[in-house]
């Protein structure tokens, strides 16, 4: 419950505060968001499995974001930034899908 409230508070804050993205962070923010979504879906799955652990959640959330951003940064340095960010998005997308499938199986037995 608090998680949903936190999400809502974050969204409202984003809408109200009108933040601008610093240009040097612009390539990493979308990847970081997708990585965080992956961590969130993993956490939801863990909740349903009864395996949720907040420390695991925090660590996986932060490491996901950091690793994804680092990969994109590395890609930018190597000159394959756009391809690598595509790769990261694809991988994270697959993970989000499999987590969603697991949650669905737990909830609906289907």
């Amino acid at each position: 419950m608090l998680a949903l409230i936190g999400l809502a508070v974050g969204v409202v804050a984003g809408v109200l505060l009108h933040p601008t993205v610093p240009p040097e962070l612009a390539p990493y923010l979308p990847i970081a968001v997708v990585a965080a979504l992956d961590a969130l879906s993993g956490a939801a799955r863990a909740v349903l499995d009864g395996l949720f652990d907040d420390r695991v959640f925090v660590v996986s959330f932060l490491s996901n974001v950091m690793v994804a951003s680092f990969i994109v940064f590395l890609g930018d340095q190597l000159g394959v930034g756009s391809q690598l960010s595509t790769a990261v998005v694809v991988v994270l997308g697959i993970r989000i899908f499999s987590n969603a499938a697991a949650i669905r199986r737990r909830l609906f037995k289907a």
Partner: protein
Amino acid sequence: MTHPKEPPRPGSPQLGQRDRGGGGRRSAWQILGRALLPRFSRAQATAALLCAALGFAAVTQVRHAAQADYSGLRESDLVELLDRLSQRTEDLSGQNLALETQLRELESTRGQAEAAAQATDERVRIQGILAGTLPAEGPGVILRVYDTGVRVTASTLYHLVQELRNAGAEAMSLGDTRITASTWIADGVQGGEGVIEIDGTAIFPPYEFRAIGDPETIEVALNIPGGALAVIRSAGGTSYVTRESSLTIEAIAAAPTFEFASPVPEP
């Protein structure tokens, strides 16, 4: 607010919950419901914090993407865009140049065509008046010759025509016939009586000349002593000359067709 958070592996409440539920469908929903209960624990608090960060970042990114400007693009993408743009600019300016050249060519062609058409029009008007194929108007004189008893002969009328030409008449008609370079006047016979024929048409007195030219010059020339009108008077005829500031010659001649003569081609 249960702070002592030691490794909670085996005895964690979550595990216990799952064990109790036995993995059934109902229990999954129960777990979900319990997770959604407004409880305050450290786990909930950290999850809320991270979710807030995620929401904030997501909204920021969505707004950023919605701006759809180039600030979010990578350097390589920007370079590629710039390359494509300059390539396109080059193509378009090349096209522009070609089209402008074409436009200029077409305009000069049109100017030439217009000038040629104007010259042709002008020539057609001049030729039409010269050849008598167009009606003419302008200042001039009307000359009527009355045949009182004594016959006016064709050669007298012919002299009159020559006199008018000498006086600068530019277009002339006799009766309903336009006088051109090839007009002929002759004495003829019709129904046993002598008549005057002009281009094969018999005409009868009074003979009406219409001539376009300087009225004053023509009148003076006609009345010159020993001139054409003097000859008519001495032959017993009478004539009247009236000056007209505006005179119309409606009679037109058929355009001549040339059987033998053709223009020398221009070098």
